[in-house]
């Protein structure tokens, strides 16, 4: 188990290193430059440019700049936003909470509603199953931005049940503010998780070992819990992990639709302001969250499926 853990951690670090290089490199190749953004289109004197370049290390070669940035990033220093003259890490921490809360809330909806619906459809063939299949087909076809607009129109503007914008103060108010965005964010993934749950529950129900349990007189609800859900948890974890990790990126759209001050919305703003340091910082944080999420799913696998550990030992 320890070796398995260390291997996964080494893979995590390697992935982060490669992605940080890609993030830094892609912005280096992007059109425009920070000095132009800073001076707002006016042509500064060569002396001013030299001073600015020296201050932000813009005169160094690419690899040296990447090294400096990475060294800072490891210690939590993501540099300074050139247009705002503020620490990037401060700008990020101010907004990370909103995104984290939103993604967490959406994940909860995805897991509870998705697995619930999938289980219902998997166990009850007939009308219940058909209804769930139709509902999830429709909801899977709704991209987050469409869902956001529809939810805003119906529940915020027409019915007035939920506020349309902002993130709220205190627990209850935050929940009230976050409900619509979280539903919009989780809409597609919920359907996906429900679908996978349904089909894997069906598959497990037909397995021979379930027959064994039936032949031994184990009550049906225990068979479902111990042999069907427990085994279906492996594919469900895969799809839930993947979709939840992808929410981190989709959150940008939803945050903008609901005018929330989150990381995703800020990434869009920063990109249009050519605020390179902020874009790099947020991208790095999002990628890190995604990669960590995947590692967590990998570790969950080892807990859920005893055969995974043996595979890693054999290699």
């Amino acid at each position: 188990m320890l070796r398995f853990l260390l291997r996964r951690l080494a893979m995590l670090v390697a992935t982060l290193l490669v992605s940080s290089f890609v993030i830094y490199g892609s912005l280096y190749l992007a059109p425009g430059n920070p000095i132009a953004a800073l001076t707002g289109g006016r042509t500064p004197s060569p002396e001013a440019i030299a001073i600015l370049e020296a201050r932000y290390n813009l005169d160094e070669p690419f690899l040296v700049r990447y090294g400096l940035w990475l060294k800072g990033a490891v210690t939590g220093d993501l540099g300074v936003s050139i247009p705002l003259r503020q620490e990037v890490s401060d700008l990020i921490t101010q907004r990370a909470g909103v995104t984290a809360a939103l993604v967490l809330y959406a994940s909860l909806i995805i897991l509870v509603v998705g697995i619930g619906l999938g289980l219902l459809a998997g166990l009850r063939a007939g009308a219940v199953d058909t209804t769930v299949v139709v509902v999830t087909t429709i909801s899977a076809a709704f991209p987050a931005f469409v869902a956001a607009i529809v939810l805003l129109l119906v529940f915020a503007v027409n019915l007035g049940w939920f506020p349309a914008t902002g993130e709220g103060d205190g627990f209850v108010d935050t929940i009230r503010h976050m409900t619509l965005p979280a539903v919009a964010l989780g809409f597609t993934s919920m359907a996906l998780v429900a679908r996978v749950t349904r089909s894997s529950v069906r598959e497990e129900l037909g397995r021979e070992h379930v027959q064994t349990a039936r032949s031994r007189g184990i009550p049906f609800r225990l068979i479902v819990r111990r042999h069907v859900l427990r085994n279906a948890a492996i594919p469900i974890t895969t799809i839930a992990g993947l979709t939840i990790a992808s929410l981190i990126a989709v959150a940008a759209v939803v945050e903008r639709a609901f005018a929330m001050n989150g990381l995703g919305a800020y990434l869009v703003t920063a990109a249009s302001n050519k605020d390179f340091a902020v874009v790099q910082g947020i991208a790095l944080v999002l990628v890190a969250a995604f990669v960590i999420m995947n590692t967590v799913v990998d570790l969950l696998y080892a807990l859920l499926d005893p055969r995974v550990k043996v595979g890693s030992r054999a290699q």
Partner: protein
Amino acid sequence: MTPLLSIDDLTVQLSVEGDLRTVLHGVSLEISAGEAVGLVGESGSGKSMTARAVSRILPSGAVTFGSISFDGRDVSALRGGALRQYRGEVAMIFQDPRAHTNPVRTIGDFMTEALRTNRGVPGVEARRRAAALLEEVGITEGDRRLRQHPHELSSGMLQRVMIATALLTEPRLLLADEPTTALDVTTQAEVMAILDDLRRERGLALLFITHDLELAGAVCDRTAVMYAGQIVEVQAAGTLHDRPRHPYTAALVAARPRIDAMATRLAAIPGRPLSAFEAPAGCAFATRCLHVQDRCREARPALRPLGDGVVRCIRAEELVGV
């Protein structure tokens, strides 16, 4: 003496894409307490379906006619607690032990599940009994095995775990569905010997499903031969091989390669095995029988007594010794 298990005129239809297909047609069989009965036939003849009907694990949508009674109780009427109790008394051993064990749960969970769930035996006590039974089936270090998962055991060992598990609820009837078919030849004999010994020690009744006539002869008291969802012959296991009364049994015996004679070409039964729903109106075996006559095709022969057994062939007497 009333038999322990009595299957009477059992007909089972499965729904296949909306159609009902007959897979068992008028199967009648009795097993007394402590008696071992072999059920022999080709794939698709309905052997496993018979065992599944007894164990009440037919696929959903199956329609059943006729009756199965166990120790005087009507099996199809059992519900809830009574059905669970019955399933403890009738244990099943399956062909493929690997597919029939949950891969993500430990051997200990698998073995003790029925005891803990249906009998309320505490976990520690259930594990102690499980370890003791593992010892009996020749698996040492029981405590360590109980913590392992199915993939860490060989198929032969896993089948022995299956046998031990089946015995754990102290059943009165074992249903063994080709318990050695999926194993290596070398482990087959070993597993078979363990199963036979433990059964005799405990005086358990056994329904032994196999396609191997000789194996059934070695293990069982009586052998029933199935073809196309019907029983075509039942007689003492010891004499069936040397004195088959039904042409199908005779063909099965002839199809088995002999170890003491060189064969230039292996004998095979012409045609392919039929399922119950494809069987013709007359004798089900008429399409492949070497001794078929016109009157065989007119009406389905009844299962009638002959000597110490029963046979479903109108020409059985004429064909003896042919």
